[in-house]
């Protein structure tokens, strides 16, 4: 029996080591393939990503525009906010179903996606490199949408 368990552990360990050795590449998607997404993605390209990856949880359009921008102390106190890190309003996760709500939470969206990489939450797969590049370029170009 010990031998069997040892064999299984060996298989598990070998595969794990093999995978650990398969490091990823060394380029960002923007460096490797700069034309894979538009230089200035349109809202029509960006919003479906929010629809697919964010709005299933962040339903509604409640925003947090009355709250001050997040500063260092607020970052440190993120645990007081919702599990996503997005500022909760009255204990409710902000909705991201409207252009206005997305604009009002843009700083937190940036931190969650590009700094903490913790959205979608839990063990759900994170955004793909392509989705991140679309959002990053959209923000870099002024985050234009139908509401601004």
């Amino acid at each position: 029996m010990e031998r069997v368990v040892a064999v299984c552990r060996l298989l598990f360990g070998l595969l794990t080591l093999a995978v650990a050795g398969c490091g990823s590449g060394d380029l960002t998607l923007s460096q490797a393939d700069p034309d894979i997404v538009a230089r200035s993605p349109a809202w029509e390209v960006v919003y479906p990503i929010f629809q697919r990856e964010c709005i299933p949880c962040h339903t509604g359009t409640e925003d947090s525009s009355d709250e001050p921008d997040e500063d260092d102390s607020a970052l440190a106190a993120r645990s007081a906010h919702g599990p996503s890190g997005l500022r909760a309003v009255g204990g409710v996760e902000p909705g991201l179903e409207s252009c206005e709500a997305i604009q009002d939470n843009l700083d937190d969206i940036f931190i969650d996606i590009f700094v903490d990489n913790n959205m979608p939450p839990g063990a759900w797969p994170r955004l793909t490199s392509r989705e991140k590049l679309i959002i990053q370029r959209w923000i870099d170009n002024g985050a234009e949408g139908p509401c601004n």
Partner: protein
Amino acid sequence: MQLGRCLMLVALFALLAGEAVATPIYAARSARTCDNCHVTPKEWDNPPLAERKCNMSCQSCHVDPAGGGMRNASGRYFGRSTLSMIATSPRPTNDWDRNVSFVGRRDRATTYNDDLPLGPKTFEEAAAFADAVNDGWAWGTPLGAPTRYGLLAGRYGTLNPDPVFRVGTDVRFAALLSGSLAFPMQIDIPVVFHPVHHFTVLANTGARGRPSGYSDTFDQDHSFYLREAFAMVHEAPYQAYVKAGRFVPSFGLRLDDHTALIRRGFELDGALPESRVSGVEVGAMPNYPFLNASWFRMAARQRVPDAWDITDVDDGWGSAINAGWRDLSWSVGASALIRRRPIPEGGDTSSYGVYGVVNPWRRWRFVPLTYQFEYDYGSFQRSSGAESQQAALYQEIQWVAANGVTLLAAHDWEDPDTEIVDDEAHRLQTGVQVSPISGVTLDGRFRVLVPAVGSADSDIFLQLHLWQ
């Protein structure tokens, strides 16, 4: 540092190794005893190889020879006799002493003595058992003379082995303790029509659950769609078959976890209509080799095909082959899948996979352990036309602690683009499956995702699976 933390988690996971929900693993561990798939085979003489139906391939338990979905009489018998805490078909004798203590011997169909039910010893004897069939989910007998290549009456207790009409159901409710979501994850209503021997039509209408709630599940476009719809000629020598219609190409292990990282990036997510193709598949399982091969056309990668029109495809074509050897306590297999289509429709992909299973439980009765793995690698075209590669791994250990109670542990890994830095992720799961009675399974998992950058995060995933 990220890699070190990840490896520590993997090592911890290895130490805690227990089991996950993956149906191919049922087949892998079923060969430890014969009477978990049919009534006790005393004095059974194996028929010629061409007539053998009992093997470790998907068709042993499922109507679809490539696996998944509606179970046939053998699969239903396995669910009643072996999977659950309380058996409603006779419990395999090897499992008589494996009931959970508080359940005891409440099995409805098990005598716990030598007075065990017996099935037919030969094809000729099976006709005498036809009157014993009493099945509320499967009706009738196909037209034509009985075939030696179909399932035999009496081998599965009172279950109808070869019905004209069969209706099934598969419902999964899920709760995710991270976003505090509860949603109907999946609803399937498969129907099988088998008017004459050697010919079957299967239509499985299903819906994707929406994390945003019940209303979205039922209201959104394409919530309900034909997940599988095909006509099939089967019950042939060596369990050969030909089917034509909509299906998911046979590739690697057919897991019931549609979020598995070995499936999503390779366009084989079992929950999505986008993963369905329309084409022809042929195969055979002459005990123990197996082969499934298909040629198909498909909708563009980012386009959801029509829910009901199974001919709704775009330009391009694909082909898949899945072959290997499934022995009594181990199996190995290899798969290849290519898609050739214009770049705006998703571009070309070439995917290759190897997989295997080890089931020491067959030889060591007190080691109810099963291990399986799959490693996939392939090329794809980005939307810019540039080519790159992706890779993914899945491995899983199951420990059947008692009848109907299974501990699980699983490890996923993916590198969705090998040229891009920091896009890979590991996912670890550990949990328990409890099946109190056939058709009901409760599944609880603690899952951890470890992305290459950013923080690891966890959730608890609970699922109630009702099936028949």
